[in-house]
């Protein structure tokens, strides 16, 4: 393994993967951007949060049920 080998490998890489010739953007992306901005973040109902909190608390208080729970999943 030497510098000459590295140079050769770099050369082979350049011959195998050509640089991107067309880097010109073909259209205005603002309409997509507006769509993205209009997307509302996903709202998680409060009930789901409460349920997740309850489940986490139960698992913390009774860790012995975790294997049984995993068995039934």
């Amino acid at each position, binding site marked *: *393994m030497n510098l000459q*080998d*590295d140079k*050769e*490998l*770099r*050369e*082979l*890489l*350049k*011959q*195998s*993967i*050509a*640089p*991107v*010739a*067309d*880097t*010109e*953007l*073909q259209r*205005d*992306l*603002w309409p*997509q*951007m507006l769509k*993205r*901005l209009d997307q509302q973040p996903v709202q998680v109902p409060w009930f789901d949060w409460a349920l997740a909190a309850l489940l986490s608390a139960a698992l913390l208080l009774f860790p012995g049920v975790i294997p049984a729970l995993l068995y039934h999943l």
Partner: protein
Amino acid sequence: MELLERFAAGDLEAFAVLFRQHQKQVYAWIVRIVRDSGIAEDLTVETFWRIYRSRARFDPAGNFGAWAYRIATNAALDHLRRARFETELPEDLPGPPRPDPAVRSEMRERIRQAFRELPAKYRLVATLALIEEEPYEKIAGAAGISVSLVKVRVFRAVRMLRKQLTAMGMEMGAKR
């Protein structure tokens, strides 16, 4: 109020102006990394989405273009991490004619495969430095790392590539 101040304050019109001023450069940078025009368009939008979300942290006295390049590079890196083992290196973007016809297609495919398997952070710098021949300073600025670290990553990428190719049964010097 200046454009960048209005943007930082959440003015959508100011953001639209900045988007139109910078979308071409951001796209051109991303497409060099991900090498797919469709993915590059999506990542350009993703980049500006991240920019818009982080507008309150932007210092209006700062350089918006440099900040956009940094965020674009992170978005492209996230994509490379997700797609590392899922996608082929696309060939749909036309490039200049390959200078050495002696490099056989099988060898090229092996090199492409080995390159695809590089960890994302190495693939990023190797793509920009070795294939796109971007200056190390520009890569360092966009990736948020030092020039020395860019050089180290390029060096390591070449070594990893060699190791991978050797494991595939390819020896350097075999083609000549």
